[in-house]
Each structure stands twice: as structure tokens, then as C-alpha cells.
């Protein structure tokens, strides 16, 4: 545990640009205000503080977006991001769901981060990230506004992800011309990465093909305290205490961190040997205290004979992919683009 009264702020100042430090520190402090010791969450204040942006069906930098109510029962919204084409730079609003025209169009289903409790599909930081992914991968991006903890515990987020996957898979207008199928990738950061894994699991044996998983600093954990957790606790924006809080908020009451949602390759996990699981791109930040769990995840995939590429960004902290002001950002974006482009 971090020493209580001494605030060790110096290390993280040295490794990130100033505006990134301001952004992530702001989140860190605001989030602390929202987590109550009794496990409840100040949702009203969270929504008040979260900076959101509307969708925009008028293209900006070649990308336009619109929101779709995918499931009325759970009020599940997804924000769809599409590239504006040269022939139709200004889409007619009645043609938002016009069929994709390319031979192969990757459709990336994106799950935003926030440790299962924070943020939304229309949070400014995630809206920006999704727009980038469109241009980078020449893809359609579907950002899922999944239900959050602690009001909605496991498995709500996974259920919503699964609903979104089924919805995407059944849209004729998202089918690539080449084979009249939807070319689906699952992606997410932090809790979103965790959700991507579990939704991919659910897709096994369902007949829905997921072509690849992209996990950015995915949120995994376990009962044990690992070396990285102890070494990096409190040093780079994140503490073990807050990680514990979020797991307690998401996992079913009474469950510990070896629950398979948290620890998919732990004692309660499911073996992936012999299973047709999508290839994975896993990005791990060298200053992320949960990296031991993320590396264990990569190992778990490898041991089960699954295809996985690890990108270990030594000098990166959490959230490095939110602002394009560092080398790790550009490296990772290039890799994502190659990962998605490789099945064309």
C-alpha cells in the first residue's frame, strides 16, 4: 500500500507531457471524490463532471457519427463512427446507414474504459479516440455505451457487449462487399479491454466470427498481490486501493478477485485450449501497476495455443493513448492499424 501521507508525485511528472499529467491527475482526483468508502458511487456528480460531446452527422476531418438505440429495454446506445467518402462528403441524414462500399471494411466494436464505473460512449476523450480509429483503420467504429458498476454489476457490461456484437453482426449495411459478412474486431481500453475478452469468449460457438481483439491496458486482476502492484502502487496515478474498489463494485457481492471476470486465467477461469479464439493485440504500459496480470493474460493465451502479440510500452503510463503527444501513442496506433489491416 502507498505510504499514507506522503504523496509521491514526482515520478509520474517526469514521464508524461504536462497536459497529459494535468488530464490524468484531474481524473484521478475527481474519481477519488466519486468513490465512497461504503462502495457506493456518486453517480450524479460523476455525470456532472464527465465532459461529453454530441454525435455529429456532419463530417469533421473525414469522420461523421450518429447514435443508435440498440436495445430499448436496457436503453443501450451505441455511437457509430463512419468515414465520409470522397463521393459523398456530406451524407444525407436519411443515408446514415447506407451500406459500406469497400471490399473489406473492418468494424471495430469499441468498449470505453473507466474501470467499469466511469465514462460513457459520448465522453469527449473516447469520442476523440474512436474518431482516430476510423481514419487509422479505415474502419467503422461502434462505441458501446454499456451499463456501469456499481449500479450494474457483472455480467451487465458483458451482456451489453454481447447485445452490441449481435446487433453489429446482423446489420446488412455493415457487410463487406467481398463476402457479405461483417468483419468484426473487438477493442477496448482498461475495463473495455476486459469486456472485449469476455465478449469474444461468449462469441465462441455462437457462429459469430470475431477477427481480432485489441486490448489497451486491459483491466485484469487477482487475489494475489503481484510484484508490479507492490512496486508501482500509487506511483503513476493509480493505487491498489482504487483497483480493489472497482473490482468490489463490479464483481458479484461476496466474490473475490479470482472470479473469472477479473482473473480469466486464474483458478476459476475457463481453458481456451483448442478453442477458436480471435487473435489478440495486447498493449501493456510499463508504468501500469497491474501489468503482471496483463502479462499473465498474454501468457495464458499463448499457453492455450492462441495467437497473441504483446506490445510492451516501457515508459508508458495509463491513458497514454488519450492524447497524441507521445511516441507510445503513435507506435500503438501503427500496430493497431496493421493488426486490423492484415486480413484484407
Amino acid at each position: 500500500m502507498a505510504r499514507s501521507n506522503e504523496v509521491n508525485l514526482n515520478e509520474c511528472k517526469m514521464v508524461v507531457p504536462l497536459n497529459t499529467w494535468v488530464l490524468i491527475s484531474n481524473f484521478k482526483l475527481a474519481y477519488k471524490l466519486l468513490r465512497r468508502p461504503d462502495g457506493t458511487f456518486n453517480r450524479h456528480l460523476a455525470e456532472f463532471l464527465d465532459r461529453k460531446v454530441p454525435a455529429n452527422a456532419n463530417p469533421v476531418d473525414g469522420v461523421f457519427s450518429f447514435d443508435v438505440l440498440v436495445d430499448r429495454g436496457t436503453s443501450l446506445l451505441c455511437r457509430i463512427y463512419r468515414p465520409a467518402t470522397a463521393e459523398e462528403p456530406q451524407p444525407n441524414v436519411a443515408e446514415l446507414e447506407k451500406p459500406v462500399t469497400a471490399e473489406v471494411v473492418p468494424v471495430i466494436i469499441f468498449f470505453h474504459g473507466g474501470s467499469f464505473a466511469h465514462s460513457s460512449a459520448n465522453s469527449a476523450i473516447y469520442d476523440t479516440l474512436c474518431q482516430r480509429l476510423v481514419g487509422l483503420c479505415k474502419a467503422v467504429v461502434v462505441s458501446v455505451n454499456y451499463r456501469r458498476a456499481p449500479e450494474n454489476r457483472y455480467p451487465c457490461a458483458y451482456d451489453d457487449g454481447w447485445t452490441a456484437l449481435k446487433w453489429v453482426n446482423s446489420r446488412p449495411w455493415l457487410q463487406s462487399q467481398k463476402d457479405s459478412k461483417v468483419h468484426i474486431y473487438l477493442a477496448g481500453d482498461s475495463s473495455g479491454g476486459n469486456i472485449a475478452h469476455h465478449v469474444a469468449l461468449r462469441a465462441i460457438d455462437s457462429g459469430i466470427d470475431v477477427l481480432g481483439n485489441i486490448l489497451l491496458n486491459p483491466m485484469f486482476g487477482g487475489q494475489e498481490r503481484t510484484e508490479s502492484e507492490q512496486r508501482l502502487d500509487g506511483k503513476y496515478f493509480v493505487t491498489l486501493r482504487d483497483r480493489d474498489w472497482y473490482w468490489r463494485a463490479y464483481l458479484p457481492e461476496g466474490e473475490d478477485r479470482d472470479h473469472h471476470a477479473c482473473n480469466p486465467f486464474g483458478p476459476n477461469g475457463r481453458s481456451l485450449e483448442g478453442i477458436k479464439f480471435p487473435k489478440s493485440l495486447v498493449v501493456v504500459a510499463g508504468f501500469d501497476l497491474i501489468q503482471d496480470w496483463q502479462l499473465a493474460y498474454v501468457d495464458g493465451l499463448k499457453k492455450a495455443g492462441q495467437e497473441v502479440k504483446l506490445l510492451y510500452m516501457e515508459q508508458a503510463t495509463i491513458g497514454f493513448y488519450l492524447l497524441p503527444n507521445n511516441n507510445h501513442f503513435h507506435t500503438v496506433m501503427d500496430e493497431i492499424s496493421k493488426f486490423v489491416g492484415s486480413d484484407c
Partner: protein
Amino acid sequence: MVLYDSTALAGNSSGSSSSSSSKPPPPPLQPQQQQEIDGLLAGAGYKVRSSELRKVAQRLERLETAMVNSPADFSQLASDTIHYNPSDLASWVDSLLSEFAQPPTCPSEFVMDPVTNQTVVNDAWTTTEPNMPQVHQNISYEQQSLNNQLTVVTAMEEDSGIRLVHMLMTCAECIQRGDFSLATSFLEDMQGLLTRVNTVCGIGKVAGHFIDALGRRIFQGIGGGSINGGSAYENEILYHHFYEACPYLKFAHFTANQAILEAFDGHDCVHVVDFNLMHGLQWPALIQALALRPGGPPLLRLTGIGPPSPDGRDSLREIGLRLAELARSVNVRFAFRGVAASRLEDVKPWMLEVNPKESVAVNSIMQLHRLLGSEPNRNSPVETVLSWIRSLNPKIMTVVEQEANHNQPGFLDRFTEALHYYSTMFDSLEACTVQPDKALAEIYIQREITNVVSCEGSARVERHEPLARWRTRLSGAGFRPLHLGSNAYKQASMLLTLFSAEGYSVEENDGCLTLGWHSRPLIAASAWQALSDAPAEFPAPDTHRPS
């Protein structure tokens, strides 16, 4: 079912739609105000001047230290503090710091310079790597929100619904081009298609109203005809049912009242001027809140503006009497005055009989947009009215407006915008099952649609403009924003869960609050205060009455 809604802003965002007599329209931002803000943080929703980044960082550090070292203050901070305008990060951090009894200096902020033995600021932050391009935002934060924006929320749609939308747009486009015969044939096709589409809900229902409105425009012309002739009495009934059927008006009243209550804190003589009294639905809650305030209620005067009653009844006075009864029952000294005027621009400030000693609140629920003339000209009504509001030196002016851009000069743009906006609004009404509230609320909305689509010139009064535009206009007219905080936000959110179905959402937007359906804001509430640098122009009460 399709819900389409949009906020299409006119491409040319630089001019305001009205101008005052002696000066050019205020530009969106004065050059000296256009400080360079960090472009990347702006993209994340935060306005921080690049030159202030270091200072904000240091304050954040201090705040963190304070939070760790004063757990008692911290838990109070977490539960009781009211937050304002989170986009203004510097102010937010400062306001939180001020909650701590003794904001510490951060030991890491200052170090001893070993050579000079002096305390120097510890500048431990890395500068951005030299080969990283610096992203500077050339346009200001405010300018961003004025750019072309179109928000669409959809749901599953059947083919015939999509075709209907196509045809509506094409018909509107014909009308814009002046090709009325082609527009008429589209109209007939649409009427036919409508019989094959579900008109009980979704796009079919709202399409019916739009087809209707287009028909009026083509066949009856743009003078408004019978729709605008609806009697004041009818309007009030419809308004009341709209109030009951969905939370938009309740949100407006609730949020405005909260702001007014706070503004009146510590004042003993207060005067509320309501620009559209209707049935006075907003005021019982304020009267009761004032009755319960610590230290006792003030003397409350309410001046209600409304249309004259045609049949000799004094409906304004009747409402005033009922409110007075309520006030009496809760021991609030109360006085009411009705001001009958067919149009807001006919009201003169002397009619309000404002006493210089009282604290004034001006309350405008969906009235200011009616003052936006069709042509920018000298002394347009909105400028005149804003100017005399300012001369009253109100403690607060609460403004609620539809969050839509229905005042664009181009017909097709306006039509598209309205189709999206009202589709969303109708969809949100689906959540209401109470009759006749729902049916009458729909008629209320239908009248708005008809006005936006089929009227022009002075007949078109539903000239809704988005919050970003109102901000510019009100700032230019000498008002500064009073931010609505997290307490108002929380109460509005809680009100929604109590009274309405899931799907409604309250959002904070740069100190204002919006209520919308799913991710689309439909109504925006803001509060303002007159800047006091101009000398008061308000004449003594009895010198300007006409003889």
C-alpha cells in the same frame, strides 16, 4: 422506429442574426479574449490556457496533498461541495482547494537551490518531446461549438420509414427551390405511403405532422393562417398537458427556481418577473421554497406577463389570486401584478413597476426566441428587450430555450433540423402513457412544428436557437453567465428518475444544464446576471408613463 434529430447549424457562424442600432453585431469573441488554449485538452473537454498549464498542474498537486492530509475536509468535499463548470479546470481546482482549511504548499513544489540556498520552484515536469508537433488550437473553444453540428439518434427502422424520410427531405428541397408542383406530387406520394406506415408511434407519427405542415406551406402560404389563431385559452390548456406529459417544462421550472432561490438568498424584498405566466405552474414551488428558507421568507412580488383575455375575464389576475392564496397559507407576504401584452416586445419596463430596492429575477421560459426577427435590422426586438432587462439590474435572469437550430435562413436546413428534433421529442413522449396528457401534448408540439415549417416572417415565432448562440447573444448584450452547479444537476437528475421513464438525460454544458432524450439535448437552461458597468438607464417610475 426511427428517431432522427439534428442540430444543423448554419455554415456561416460569424454573424449574429440581429444587430443593434449603433454598433456592428458583436463578433463571437473579441481578439483579446481569444487566448490560446491547449488544443489537446480542449479535445478532452477542458479549457486550459497553455500559459496556465503549469499553474494548474501545481494546484492539482496541492489539491491532492490536501485531500490526502485532511481526510475530514476531504469527505466533506466529496459529499457537500457544489461544483461548477468543470470545463474550466483552473477554476474547478481552485474552488476545491478553497474548501480546505489550510491548503498546504506542496513540499515537492519548491526545492532548495543548492548553489544560492534559495527556494526555487521545482519544475520537474518534462517538456513535450522536441520531435512531437505541438498542437495549437487556432479556433477558440467557443467557436468550436458554433461549428456545423448535426446530432442524430436513431433506432431500428423499417424500409418504408426510411423512404418517408427521404421523401420528406426531397419535398422540402423542392420547396426551397420553388418547385411547388413537384413538391405537391411528393406530398401526395407521402400521404399514400403514410397509410402503409405505422402512424401510432415512431417516424410515422412525426412524419404525419411534417407532411401536414408542408401541405400548409404549399397550399395556404406562409402567413400562418388558422394555426396561429389558436386562442390564448387553448394554448394554455395544451401547455398544461405538455407540462404533465413529459419532463421538459418541469425541468425548466425546477432549474430556474433553484437558481432564483439561490440568487435571492439574503434578500428581503424580491420581485420575480415572469415573461409568460400561463397557469403560473412554476411559482407554487418557489413560494413554498421561500417559505421554508432559513431566516424566513422575503416579501415576494410576482409580475406575470401574458396575453390579454378576449372575453373580459382577467385570467392573469385569477391566477395571481390563486397564487396569493397559496402564499398566504404558508405565510409568505406576496403581491401579484398582471401585465397583459400580446407580444413580449410590447411590454415596457415601466409596466413592471420595479422598485430600486428590490432584488429582481427575470424568468424567461421559451420566450426570448420569439423576439428574434426574421431580418437583422435596427433595434430588433430581442436587443431592445435585453437592453431594458439589463436596465432593471436584475439579480438573475433565468433563460430556458429549446436546444435546436430552427432559425436558419435556409428552409431545407431548418426542415432537416426540425425533423430530427421533433422526432426525438416525440420518441421521448412514447414513454408517457397518461391520456389525455399525451394526446394534447402532441398537439402542442405539432403547433410548434407547423410554425417552424409552414410560416415565415412575423408569423414564424418559433425561432429556436441553440445554447451556443444564446451565449454569444447574451454576453454581447452585457450579461455574464451564472453557472448552474452540481446541486442543481443532481436535483434535476433525481426529479427525472422520480417522474419520468428511462432515456431522459441531464447534461452539464459549460455552466448550463440541458435535458434531452438519450444523447440528444432538447432543452437548455441557463442563468445570467447583468454586468454592472453600464450606468442604469432605468427612469424613475412615474416619469415615463404615457398620458
